[in-house]
């Protein structure tokens, strides 16, 4: 117990220095928390993907469409429960800086395959009835103030011309891992107009999403689907939703690497600051340590004293930083448009990593002063002048 009191007294000896160190650690832990959250936000799509969904797209790349006629052929495969299709529409709403996903879908089946988008039954019926209607996500509705009955005008690029969609429903994400920033409208509405204006592009969808009964069979079913269209003008590539999402992330791998690297640099900086404080304190106390040793304090006591102080400071800093991370991340998330990172939550793993890195820093920062305190001979220590 006495040792703890001594640790506390030692830590408080230079109040300003200790306070500054704690502050530095807190800031670093906060930055670490933010960076990790950005990294996990990238992976959010992978985590949110369902095991029972397959995605079939054109084999060349995702920008090429697939014939609408593939739908029935895919649906005939046994153990395929439901097939739906989506078509990336893009276009410009207000100006080019307002991104959110705008997609043409099949109103009958899309919510069967994506049960995580929750929609009131009356709104669903209203959406199905009206060709030019659309559904928007709750987060999107909040950002732009969309209400039922509003008209959303969009200037097409891939599908040229002016388009207008009436909001007939607002879907709610089932939980925090679901993207609430998308807009869906009738594929038929798109196709009708394309048929009139550029007939050679009619009857095409972006990609198919297949719900299967047994996730264990996903490999076999994928091969079956791709086999159907082998050697056709539009060959397909089918993979699980998870693999599809991972492909997107792998393509941006350099950024993930850079951010991971930076989060380690942060830990390095905390280590330097805490280490510096501990080295200074230990040097100033060289004479005291010699006195302790003369009085018969064991090496274990000395280690406990220095390690304890280092741990106390880094845990206080880590705790404070973690406590501040939540409002800080919330502030960042409010500052960037919701559609940039549709899913932005602090994952438990981020908290665990933050705490454990503060612990590691506490241990490492005390190594050098401990080594010095233990190896300095009592006589030299007593002779030492600050």
């Amino acid at each position: 117990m006495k040792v703890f009191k001594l640790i506390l007294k030692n830590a408080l000896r230079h109040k300003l220095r200790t306070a500054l160190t704690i502050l530095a650690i807190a800031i670093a832990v906060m930055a670490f928390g933010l960076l990790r959250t950005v990294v996990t936000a990238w992976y959010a799509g992978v985590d949110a993907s369902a095991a029972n969904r397959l995605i079939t797209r054109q084999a060349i790349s995702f920008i090429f469409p697939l014939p609408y006629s593939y739908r029935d052929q895919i649906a005939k495969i046994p153990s395929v429960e439901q097939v739906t299709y989506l078509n990336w529409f893009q276009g410009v709403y207000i100006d080019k800086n307002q991104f959110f996903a705008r997609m043409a879908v099949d109103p009958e089946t899309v919510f069967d395959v994506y049960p995580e988008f929750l929609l009131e039954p009356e709104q669903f019926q209203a959406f199905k009835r009206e060709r030019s209607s659309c559904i928007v996500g709750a987060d999107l509705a909040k950002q732009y103030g969309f209400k039922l009955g509003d008209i959303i005008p969009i200037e097409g690029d891939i599908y040229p011309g002016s388009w207008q969609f009436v909001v007939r429903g607002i879907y709610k994400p089932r939980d925090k891992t679901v993207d609430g920033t998308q807009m869906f409208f009738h594929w038929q509405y798109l196709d009708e107009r394309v048929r009139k204006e550029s007939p050679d592009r009619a009857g095409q969808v972006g990609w198919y999403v297949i719900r299967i009964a047994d996730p264990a069979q996903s490999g076999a079913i994928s091969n079956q689907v791709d086999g159907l269209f082998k050697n056709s003008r539009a060959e397909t590539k089918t993979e699980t939703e998870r693999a599809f999402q991972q492909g997107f992330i792998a393509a941006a791998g350099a950024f993930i690497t850079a951010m991971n690297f930076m989060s380690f640099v942060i830990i390095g900086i905390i280590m330097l600051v805490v280490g510096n404080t501990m080295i200074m304190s230990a040097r100033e106390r060289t004479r005291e340590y010699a006195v302790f040793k003369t009085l018969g304090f064991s090496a274990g006591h000395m280690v406990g004293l220095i390690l304890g102080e280092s741990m106390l400071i880094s845990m206080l800093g880590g705790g404070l930083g973690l406590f501040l991370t939540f409002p800080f991340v919330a502030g960042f998330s409010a500052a960037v448009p919701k559609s940039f990172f549709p899913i932005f939550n602090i994952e438990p793993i981020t908290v665990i990593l933050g705490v454990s890195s503060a612990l590691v820093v506490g241990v490492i920062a005390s190594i050098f002063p401990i080594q010095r305190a233990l190896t300095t001979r009592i006589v030299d220590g007593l002779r030492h002048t600050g």
Partner: protein
Amino acid sequence: MGTRRLTTGITVLGVALVVFVFAAVLMMAYGVQKTLVATGSDQNVLVARKAANGEISSIIDRETANIILTLPHIAKSSDGKPIASGEPVVIINLDKVGGGLSNVTVRGVSLQVFTLRPQVRLKEGRMFTWGARELVTGVSIAKNFAGSQIGNVVRFAGDNWTVVGILDSDGSGFDSEMWGDVEQLLDAFNRNAYSTLTFRLDQPDVFTEFASAFNKEPRLQQFEPKIERRFFEEQSELMAGFIRILGIFITVIFSAGATIGAMITMYAAVANRTVEVGTLRALGFRRRSVLAAFLAESILLSLIGGLVGLFFASFLQLFSISTLNFGSFSELAFSFALSPSIVISSLLFAVAMGLVGGFLPSVRAARLNIVSALRSA
């Protein structure tokens, strides 16, 4: 300053780390921008659909392209044909050398393309034969993607395309593309429209004149001409902006940590030299000089840290990164690039850290009471 070598060293190292990251982030953003700016030329004009975010989402049918080419100020070659290239731009998936698929831009080009873009040269092999399903590949693609070297066959659109040559464009975005015959690509993809149309102006500085003629043509209302360089620069904005915002946000937080580190060191330095300060003051040095001396020490420390950080950051220029450009959704290779303004802002940043970190301790030193300072030994 020489006393407490270890502590001083650690402080310098802290500043160096922060400056290294700060410079690296700016160099990365600048690298993306530099690559894409080099892609376009000031004398070329690129026409795309007004609403399009990039080349792949733009569509220009042949009829429209022909209307555009009748406008004044378009440069003609010696046989009277316009120096222009109507280009379908698509994305295909290829395997990266390190594993994983990525998106590669395939551009259909017409005969005039080397007159239009003189910076692009054939580095190895030969140009594709017009009318054959052959491709030439940019040097970065050849390096980073498996199966895209000379002699390899790339399979897409139900056909086999042989790679017959490698292009080099001095680090521009074309190094990250594959080129083929426009007619072959349109035919293979079953398309009948270009993505964009690029042509040369007959003299510099006539763009405004050209643009007003363009905007008067009622059939071209959905399209927009841009200086080619400007167009590609815009393609870099999304990504360069993202890197910059995130990077600066993070380094500012880092710097708070390093500044506090400097502050701790300087407070210790002041405490350590209380007697010295007392002596100096007794000898007649003013408070102001003491303040300046400590502040100068702190700034010197952080400036050294800044130089060390920059020194190591400058080696990053040897590395090039190949990754997905969000602006165009396809692979783009670029190098870290250092510019004078990055050097200056990194050093200013370091000095600012020293100034902020050293100010309070220096004030404390300057305000020491002579008598008690001398006695404190």
